[in-house]
């Protein structure tokens, strides 16, 4: 899967694209956990994500735990309609910080 990457000041923005499912969650998880170094602020921009399965959400959960343990911050933004529904169904909105837009997330993470 393609995972775009850019920096906005101290914040790393990861932009996966397509489906995060059983096939694609391993590289997503590897990249996300690798980015969450101690104290790091990471934003996952979901603008180009069409779907996320339990495996993808598990990667986010691991990221959230790792981030909290290392005094970092993890947020997600720009959930499309399907991904937003899945976040509600899974109750993941209670696990990670969710923002409507990347700009709003970046402002909160600074």
């Amino acid at each position, binding site marked *: 899967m393609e995972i775009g990457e850019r920096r906005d000041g101290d914040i790393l923005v990861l932009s996966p694209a397509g489906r995060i499912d059983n096939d694609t969650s391993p590289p997503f998880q590897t990249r996300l956990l690798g980015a969450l170094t101690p104290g790091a602020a990471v934003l996952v921009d979901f603008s180009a994500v069409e*779907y996320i399965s*339990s495996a993808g959400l598990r990667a986010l959960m691991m990221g959230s735990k790792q981030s909290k343990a290392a005094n970092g911050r993890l947020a997600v933004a720009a959930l499309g309609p399907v991904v937003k529904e*899945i976040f509600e*169904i899974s109750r993941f909105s209670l696990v990670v910080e969710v923002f409507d837009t990347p700009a709003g997330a970046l402002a909160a993470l600074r």
Partner: protein
Amino acid sequence: MLIRFWGSRGSIPTPLGYRAVRTKIREALLAARHHQLDSPESIDNFIAKELPFSTSGTYGGNSSCVEIEAGGDEYVLCDVGSGVREFGNALLAKHGPARKSRFNVFLSHTHWDHIMGFPFFTPSYIPGNVIRIHGCHNAMRDVFIRQQSNPCFPIDFRSLGATIEFVELEPGRTYEIDGLSVKPIRQNHPSDSYGFRFSKNGKSMVYSTDSEHKFDVLTENYPFVEFFRDADLLIFDAQYSLADQISIKEDWGHSSNMIAVELAQLARVKHLVMYHHEPVFDDKMIEKVLGETRRYAEINGSPNKLTVTSAYDGLEIVI
């Protein structure tokens, strides 16, 4: 094969209190205001078609007990949670105490919510009845004696009138019991639990409760995909949300509605029944979760169409 649910609640029986009953009555009356309900038939029709199940009924309060009618001479039950009390009473009301019966119980595990109904299972007091409790735990008899003896219960298990036998099964082996093929599988749960696949005449039903599914990636190689493969009905422990299952309630031994859907679709199951409902959830919440789970089965892109139901006490499904 007919499957009848006598107990659908997880962890502990959860009776409705008077506030919940009054809320249901109030909602029903509010919904009825603009309907012409001047005959018993129109009222029945209104209840059946116009009210949500969370208002017209309840998912129920009894803990785990499911009956399988498969045309054999003997009764077949999965677990003897508090629901088995009502099963026993219904049987006596229908046939009276004189008729002697044989029962096959398949025990998922010995946690209390799965055995607590047995001291109140009236047929166990009647000489001539035979109750065979099948399971993969080697301490089943000890556990039944411990819950039904002084000082926990006034009538000792060893003094019951029925003949009660414990039959230890081996996971992975297939057994023929009262015309049913039965295969157990070991599940991830504190002190282990076991699921059972029942098959007869080309139809299959899987009873898989108190089972936590932990995997990084869900693939065809996961043993439960094969165990559930092409089942006509899958009764599945979907007690938690995914977020709860993999965070604060990790290693508590239960699973979630999203894992239920993904596993069922991967295994090409036809009908998923969510079971072992979280006792914190009221009827409205269980109904909400049911709607969300059906929606997840639609939007996740799987080519395998899946019917999704939430179990309730009194539910009957024919496969």
